[in-house]
């Protein structure tokens, strides 16, 4: 297990370096005149050139790359070229927003898909068909449309939840929950549909296995057979889908953050990329890759917990 963990961690570090390096190189080919953008519209060409020199943009790309790599390895993500705010500060403000809505979406998605997937697999018949049709429909509706409808109906017309804004957890737990509910539901919509389908399929496979018949013949209740044995065996494939969904949710969060006026990682990344604020873009990329690696690792560990066979392998 320890060897497995070390191997995954090393692979994760390599992935972070590769993705961040590729991003660094791509950022140099955007054609955007960053120094001019920073010094503003009224500055002279000399001021723009001085700014470029100050940022080190007048040096060859290879020198800049290794310089950046060295600094980043010491844990220093640098400062924004535009507002001089440390990238770590920006990320610490934006990460809770995005992680809150993604975590909320994942929890919602897991809960709802377990209920719907189990019902569809066990009950079959019209209920199963309805859930399947509903899942296909939910999967095909774009997340931004769900977000717009939720904001209009639940926030604007009914006034039940806020239409915009994020309240930090530490300021008020109830207000935090209220502020992430609609964005999380909007994000969870598509993810739930896919996970429900996956869970239904794998539960049907497990239900056909001999050990289920054996358990039933021993007189175990249906509920115990399904929730304790079938669900546990059917969970790993659904968990894989859910962990893959996480990566998709990071992308989906960009649109949802816009609709609900949230300043999360998505909006930070978009505005930094448009401006050409390389330190912020690279900071976001590094943090997101680290999170994705961590989520995959957690998913792998969860397989082991769910299925001892995997642990042995």
């Amino acid at each position, binding site marked *: 297990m320890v060897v497995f963990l070390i191997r995954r961690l090393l692979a994760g570090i390599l992935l972070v370096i590769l993705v961040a390096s590729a991003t660094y190189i791509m950022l140099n080919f955007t*054609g*955007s*005149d960053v120094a*001019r*953008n920073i*010094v*503003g*519209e*009224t*500055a002279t*060409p000399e*001021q723009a050139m001085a700014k470029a020199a100050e940022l080190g943009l007048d040096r060859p790309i290879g020198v800049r790359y290794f310089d950046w790599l060295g600094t980043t390895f010491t844990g220093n993500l640098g400062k924004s070229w535009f*507002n001089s*705010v440390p990238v770590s500060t*920006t990320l610490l*403000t934006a990460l809770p927003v995005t992680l809150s809505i993604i975590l909320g979406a994942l929890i919602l998605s897991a809960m709802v898909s377990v209920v719907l997937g189990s019902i569809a697999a066990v009950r079959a018949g019209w209920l199963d068909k309805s859930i399947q049709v509903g899942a296909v429909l939910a999967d095909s509706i774009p997340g931004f449309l769900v977000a*717009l409808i939720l*904001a*209009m109906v639940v*926030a*604007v017309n009914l*006034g*039940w*939840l*806020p*239409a*915009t*804004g*994020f309240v*930090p957890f530490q*300021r008020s737990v*109830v*207000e935090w*929950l*209220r502020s992430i*509910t609609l964005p999380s539901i909007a994000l969870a919509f598509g993810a739930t549909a896919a996970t429900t389908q996956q869970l239904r399929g794998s539960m049907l496979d497990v239900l056909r296995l001999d050990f289920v018949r054996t358990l039933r013949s021993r007189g175990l209740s249906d509920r115990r057979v399904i929730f304790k044995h079938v669900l546990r065996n059917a969970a790993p494939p659904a968990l894989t889908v859910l962990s893959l969904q996480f990566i998709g949710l990071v992308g989906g969060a960009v649109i949802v953050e*816009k*609709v*609900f*006026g949230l*300043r999360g990682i998505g909006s930070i990344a978009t505005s930094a990329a*448009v*401006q*050409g604020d390389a330190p912020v873009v690279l900071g976001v990329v590094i943090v997101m890759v680290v999170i994705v690696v961590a989520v995959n690792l957690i998913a792998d560990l969860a397989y082991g917990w769910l299925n001892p066979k995997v642990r042995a392998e």
Partner: protein
Amino acid sequence: MKRKLILAGALALALSVSACGGGGTAAAGKTGGTLNLAVSQALKSWDLAEAGNGQDQEYYQPVFDSLFRLDSKGAPTANLATSWEYDKALTTLTLKLRTDVKFTDGTPLDAEAVKANLMHTKAGKGEAAALVKAISDVQAPDSSTVVVKLSTPTPSLLRSLGNVAGMIASPKSLANPQSPVGSGPYTLDISSTTAGTEYVYAVNPNYWNKDAFPFDKVDIKTISDRTALTNALLSGQLDGSSVAADRIDAVKAGGLKTDTVSPGVVEGLYIWDRKGTIVPALADARVRQALNYAFDTASIVKIAKKGLGTPTSQHFTSDSGAFVPGLDQTYKYDPAKAKALLAEAGYANGFDVVMPDISSLFPEMQAAMVEQLGNIGIRVKLDKIPFDQFMPSILAGKYAMSYFKTGGTDPWITIQLIVAKQGTWNPLHFEDPHANDLIAQISRSTGDEQTKAYQELNTYLVKQAWNAPWDVVKDTYASSKKVEVTMNPFYNAPPLYNFKPAAN
């Protein structure tokens, strides 16, 4: 299972009960409650030397007091400065200050503080700094007297000092303005503020004019997305915000009040290359006049702008002394006349021109512009650049002409922007000796003589077809029924002291 359902039900109930108590908008009565506003652009910097003169002012107004206030006609009225006087040459301005004002860090707001601020702002690179560049020196003969020396008469100076350029921060904070320290009616509540997202301001208990600001708290959110902003207004999260033209019907249907204001900005086809360096045809005034005849400005305003604009042929608005009513009839839509003028100038087959693509922000404007120029034989090739490169490219002198909008309620500011040789929006530094003479005449004169010179310059610019203006832009401000707002065209958004809780 039943227990879980009860728990889920209780949670939902708690959320909706909390929803009823949330929102915290302004309440009538002795305490004004919280004033919730939104701004679409993020704050650039707390450093007044780097300050923009547009939306930045909304973030600054709660914490920084200005030397003057501007009334609805743009005339300066007393604020931190109680009286002011120019010398005969109009190059020395003497201000008398209030003597009972302190910054929130305890430092007195005196002549030395004003001197430090004006010199600091002037040295900066922001838009506000550009308006006070003519200040050559500031003296503080005693603690309540400030003498401002100008290198050249600057008719717009008093108005500029009634806005961001005249805002005063604690001298101790000027060197490292990480958070604002001012003497204004509120202070920034750092613990409740999330930079870039939400700025919360608490009452400054020692403010000298507390009665003018009835709200207990001001909350300014940064919401750049139009949909999110509209939803926040409609759901009652906000008491006021500027709204885009395509959202006006929605906010009106939601029961919000809307007011329009014209901040003196004129949009249209701006001709940067009057020298003819890039497109030789543009050096000929007849060609530029043809461009003016090419546009059906009434239809552009009606269709593309949903009526939010006033068609015009000049750069000065009707509330400015430089405005000449008859000039708006100079170029009535007449493509045939435009073609005839082009032929007369030797361009019967038109000419080619490259312009920056603005479809990401102003698709309707671009469509109208390209089509109507095409109708008179001018073939436009659109250069697809990222929008963040739009203004830098124009400033770098890359384009001969493009869609643009700029201007100000003060005619002197407009002249400095688009006519002066070093004007920000005269990127190819075109110079016209007659226009320069008239500018010099304006700066030396006052009263009727100055108005006459302004109007003469305006007439000259229109006849020379300096640009091809379409309309004077109208901005819309939406506000909830919980507040009363008075518009003022001399500010980007209604100034904070123009917000009051509604009477009932």
